[in-house]
């Protein structure tokens, strides 16, 4: 037995003891500041900081607090973003209230106020400021902290102006509330639902006109706020980084106006002969609301929810209030919708997971974002592949499938002819005039904006598919005997042209696609209004039943002719600008396909002229028209009694089409900057021509 431990053990213990002693001495020699930083708002409110009018601009104050045991050194206070990554409008500053410095040392438990100031011009173009103040300190554990802020220059409408987009989305839903209350009170007042729907649609249109007029056209991405206006942003589901993030740029504001216009036409259109009309107006309101929400959503979760709302509302309208084959059409729509939904969900999840750390509007950090403008800052080029397919290519293909089902593009267009044929009048008008807008919009917003690498990869295929859709849709339209199905296939053809414009990656192409969408919305609303207006007198869509309109109802016939010309893109009407810009925008990148597109447009012209010949010029058959399920046996003469309501609606749409055809500035000026930003995301700025030469 050994009385002492072995020598080597003593030696080891001594070394460890000395090392520990040295380590302790070293720590004592250079004490690490362990202050802990917290940003707070006055009154303990949660972010974002709201800037209010103050001296020389818009001012807000927040506090930086040291809750640690030791001193905290704040080394930098700055507005998030720089010249290469513009996030907020210019003339913003953040500094300590006393001393105007951006550095300070805070004792434990002490705090210091930070003033955030925005000094916009006297007549500012940018009327909102959203952003983050980033504070860097010696608190390495917490790292950089941020506080969101927002400022809003008051509008003429006050609170309503600041929440214009929410109101636009929410107004139609009041119909649901009114109907619900009425039902709870034991009433099923059909007229009340209709009157409420019309009144709310008028209010919605007026608000949309205000927003359109309030929108400043030459504000772009470099002006801050990612180029969006009328922004509303708040945290929704923090755990997945979802925000209620709404905003419009030049592209979406035009489509918002179109949707509200078409919605009014849809609710004014004759209702289906059903006893459940109050439910019909509720579903129509859901469709309207969902479409608008999808157009103004800047967050993928909001966009996805809105997309689903549109799908469900469409299925319900077609299945519940549609024609004899309505259920089948609804089921078919659900099938295509499920394909699109699945693709969209997959791509959104993939994009979010691939995104990096960023901030919510209140300044809290999140690992992955759902914000589309934030995704535009992420490069997906080096992300790991999905099933051996490069990430960007796979994601873009999925996104395209989602867009193609809504657009609708060949070969995912199958739902539209059946849906338009069977849907009740208002739903058909809204679907052909506004819902189809969502597909191209998704491509522009998420496809070009968030995944420019994918857009470049897919460009030639998109252009070719666009031309194919135009030719396919035109030929199919040529073979139709029903006005509703003709509108469906002409929509397929138009969608091809929009796709070709988007695939040009030029400002002209993107603007042409949006202008084309707008004109198509007007044309589809007019054409379907004609069909729907005649339906109360018998289910009519067949050309044979409409024959001879020019002779029987010259004014109605003239308006139908205008609608056909608008749909075709005849110069002098609004539709021309879309086609011209699409061709001009796409030619630079795909000259051969542009020529093929022009040739396909001649086929489209032949289809439109055929309809004009059959409906307007053909002498009606004196025999009783073909009758069938859901078809009326009324004589042709009884069908031609358009009321003043239909005439007034169609005449106002025709006047708008003519006005925009001769003076497109009100439409194109609003679109220009958004189109430029969209194309610039994919294609870097071109060269100076003088330099090039």
């Amino acid at each position, binding site marked *: 037995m050994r009385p002492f431990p072995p020598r080597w053990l003593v030696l080891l213990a001594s070394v460890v003891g000395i090392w520990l002693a040295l380590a302790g001495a070293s720590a004592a020699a250079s004490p690490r500041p362990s202050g802990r930083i917290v940003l707070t708002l006055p009154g303990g409110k949660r972010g974002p900081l709201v800037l209010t009018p103050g001296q020389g601009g818009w001012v807000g104050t927040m506090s930086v607090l040291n809750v640690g045991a030791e001193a905290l050194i704040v080394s930098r206070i700055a507005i998030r973003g720089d010249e290469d990554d513009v996030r907020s409008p210019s003339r913003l500053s953040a500094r300590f209230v006393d001393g105007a410095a951006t550095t300070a040392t805070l004792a434990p438990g002490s705090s210091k106020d930070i003033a955030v100031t925005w000094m916009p011009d006297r007549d500012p173009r940018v009327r909102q400021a959203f952003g983050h103040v980033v504070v860097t300190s010696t608190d390495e554990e917490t790292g950089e902290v941020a506080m969101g802020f927002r400022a809003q220059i008051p509008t003429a409408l006050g609170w309503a102006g600041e929440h214009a987009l929410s109101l636009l989305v929410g107004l139609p839903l009041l119909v649901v509330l009114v109907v619900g209350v009425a039902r709870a009170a034991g009433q099923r007042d059909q007229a009340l639902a209709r009157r409420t729907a019309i009144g709310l649609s008028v209010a919605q249109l007026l608000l949309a006109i205000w927003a359109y007029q309030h929108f400043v056209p*030459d504000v772009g991405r470099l002006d801050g706020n990612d180029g969006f206006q009328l922004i509303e942003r708040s945290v929704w589901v923090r755990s997945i980084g979802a925000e209620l993030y709404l905003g419009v740029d030049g592209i979406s504001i035009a489509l918002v106006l179109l949707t509200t216009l078409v919605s009014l036409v849809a609710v004014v259109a004759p209702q289906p002969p059903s006893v459940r009309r109050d439910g019909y107006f509720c579903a129509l309101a859901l469709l309207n609301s969902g479409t608008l929400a999808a157009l103004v959503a800047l967050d993928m979760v909001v966009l996805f929810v809105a997309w689903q709302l549109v799908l469900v509302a469409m299925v*319900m309208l077609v299945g519940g209030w549609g024609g004899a084959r309505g259920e089948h059409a609804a089921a078919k729509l659900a099938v295509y919708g499920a394909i699109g939904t699945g693709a969209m969900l997959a791509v959104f999840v993939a994009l979010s997971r691939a995104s990096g750390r960023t901030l919510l509007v209140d300044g809290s950090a999140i690992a992955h974002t759902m914000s589309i403008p934030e995704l535009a800052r992420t490069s997906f080029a080096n992300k790991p592949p999905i099933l051996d397919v490069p990430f960007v290519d796979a994601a873009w293909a999925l996104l395209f499938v989602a867009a193609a089902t809504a657009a609708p593009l060949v070969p995912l267009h199958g739902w539209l002819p059946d849906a338009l044929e069977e849907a009740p009048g208002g739903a058909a008008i809204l679907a052909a005039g506004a819902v189809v807008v969502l597909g191209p919009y998704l491509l522009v917003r998420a496809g070009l904006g968030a995944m420019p690498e994918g857009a470049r990869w897919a460009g030639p295929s998109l252009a070719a598919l666009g031309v194919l859709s135009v030719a396919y849709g035109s030929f199919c339209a040529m073979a139709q005997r029903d006005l509703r199905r003709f509108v469906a296939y002409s929509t397929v053809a138009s969608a091809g042209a929009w796709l070709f414009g988007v695939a040009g990656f030029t400002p002209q192409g993107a603007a042409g696609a949006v202008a084309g969408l707008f004109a198509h919305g007007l044309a589809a609303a007019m054409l379907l209004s004609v069909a729907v207006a005649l339906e109360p007198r018998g289910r009519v869509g067949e050309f044979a039943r409409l024959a001879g309109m020019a002779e029987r109802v010259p004014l109605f016939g003239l308006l139908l002719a205008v609608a056909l010309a608008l749909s075709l893109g005849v110069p002098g009407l609004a539709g021309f600008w879309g086609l*011209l810009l699409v061709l001009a925008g796409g*030619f630079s990148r795909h000259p051969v396909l542009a020529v093929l597109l*022009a040739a396909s447009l001649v086929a489209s012209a032949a289809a439109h002229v055929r309809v004009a010949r059959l409906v307007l010029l053909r002498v009606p058959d004196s025999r009783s028209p073909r009758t069938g399920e859901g078809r009326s046996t009324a004589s042709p003469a009884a069908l031609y009694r358009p009321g003043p309501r239909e005439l007034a609606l169609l005449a106002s749409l025709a006047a708008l089409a003519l006005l925009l055809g001769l003076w497109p*500035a009100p439409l194109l000026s609003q679109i220009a900057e958004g189109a430029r930003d969209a194309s610039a995301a994919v294609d870097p700025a071109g060269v100076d021509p003088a330099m090039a030469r």
Partner: protein
Amino acid sequence: MPDYAGSLQRLVLSRTLWLIVVWPAAGAMWQLLVERRRPAYAARRTAVISLALALTATIAHVVLLARLSPGRRALFQALGSNSRIGQLDVSVALWFDSLAASASVLACVLALGAALLVPQRLAGVRGWRVWAWIHLTLGASLVAFLADGFVTTAIGWSLAAVCAAWLAAWTDPRAARIAATRGAVAVAALVVGAVAIFWGLGGTWDGDEFAPDVQPAFVAARMGSDPAPRGVPARPPGSDEAAERAPGGTLTMTGSPGAQVFVDEARKESLRAPFVGVPVQGGSHSFRIRRGAATEESVVPRVTFEGGDEIALVPLGPTLAFRSIADQLSLRDRRGDAFVRRAFEARVLPGGMPLVAAAFLAWLVAAVAMSAPPPPAGSPRVLTAVVCGAGPALLGPYFLVRVANLTPLAPHATTALFAVGAVALLAAARVAARVPGVGPQFLAVLAAAPVAVPCAALGIGGTGAYLEAMMASGLAAAGLHLLASRRAAWGGGDGTSPAKPKRGRHGVHERRREGPPGELLFVVVPERLGLWFASMERWVVEAVAGALAGLARAGAWTVATADAHGLSKPADAVAVRMTRAAHRLAPIVGGSMARIVWTLLGVAGFAALVHALWPVG
């Protein structure tokens, strides 16, 4: 002294050019809205008044034009600043030079002559319709004649095509469809050619890759032949003080209507395009130009004004305006190099075809499709023939004259133009052979003369020859039309309702009554030629056209059938199963699927609302 110079078009700004176009448009609206409810004689009276006003407005502008100095005989009016998408200016502008003046006067004179001389009974019961048509056709022609660019031309053409289809539709829907399709072909081809030229003038091509110009560019160019007198070196730096004391010059900018120009360091807009001959102090000045939304400011630095220089700010790059194309092509640098022209000439499409030649090919198709053949059968023939000869038929060749400054860049363009003229004559002979009645046959050939002869003249002798041929053939044709209309003994009586023809081997014949002297030359020979061409057309042209139409129909049927039974079939099958499943499921879950969906929606909506108001996580 600017670095560039060129024979730029000198213009005088006008505020009244729109009056030329507005009278026919107002007349048409009046006929459509008011005269349709009034007696026929009233319709004619108001038609004559509005046509006379259009002619007066045109002649007044011709007088204005004649009083200008020879170098500036052109009036220009921008109809609103409109909008700009990147480099694409979508403004609508009117341009009244000697060419436009000649064509406009011809059109107005003939339309008014027709209205005055043709008997009232030609119009028939619906007189207002004929007059409205004449007004619209004249308005369309005038818009196209006064067009300053492809966009305005397209608007005029489409209106003319609509008029042609409308006219044909009165009696023959098939002819209306043909006329409308032809108009669509014309406008599509016009736009394709225009788009090719648009991108040819800007950006850079590297193989198939094209880098577009995103930002506009401007240069300052001296209006004249040389940028600087020979032997005068460029101004050395530091000599600006002397230049400031010297007399200045004038500044002109007629491109990019609506563009704001800031002089030197000015913060507020100094000038707004278009402007002509604005005096500028001597010395060196810089200009910042803002063209509109979605474009950055362009800077033209250090332009020295001295000695009464006329300097223009010329947009450089893609454009859809005729004048702007001509101005750019005439630009030369200090070495005398027409750099834009050279670069433009070198542009080729994928496949090696010169871009200008491709554009001309498209435009020839457009011109041929647009130049309406003689009036459709069965229409109020004489009246419409006169207006057709004066207006729409001229549109095709007229457009080719407008872009004639590009012909030197396109190989064999003149030969093709001549060929187009010859083909137009052949087509007229073909149509003449199919029209019943000797008089209408004669008229058919005459109606083609304003198209064919000027086109051939343009191919052989250029713009000058075209102008003379257009005026001579147009007036001669119209005079003979009117003469024929007064001598109702020819062919179809008054020309509105042709005599019932007797069937013959090649379509229709009728026994001729006595005609005026020269019948052999003017009637028999054309008729025989026409019959010969008709025979040829039956076997060749009609066979090809018929085959194409049949192919289109078959294609439409095939694609539609494939769509219904091919592409949509899988979804249809799934939909059928889903519907069945829903029906089976309903009794099990105790309610309809719609009710379940409504309930789920309500719950989801409520949850979303609560979540929005009280965010969690």
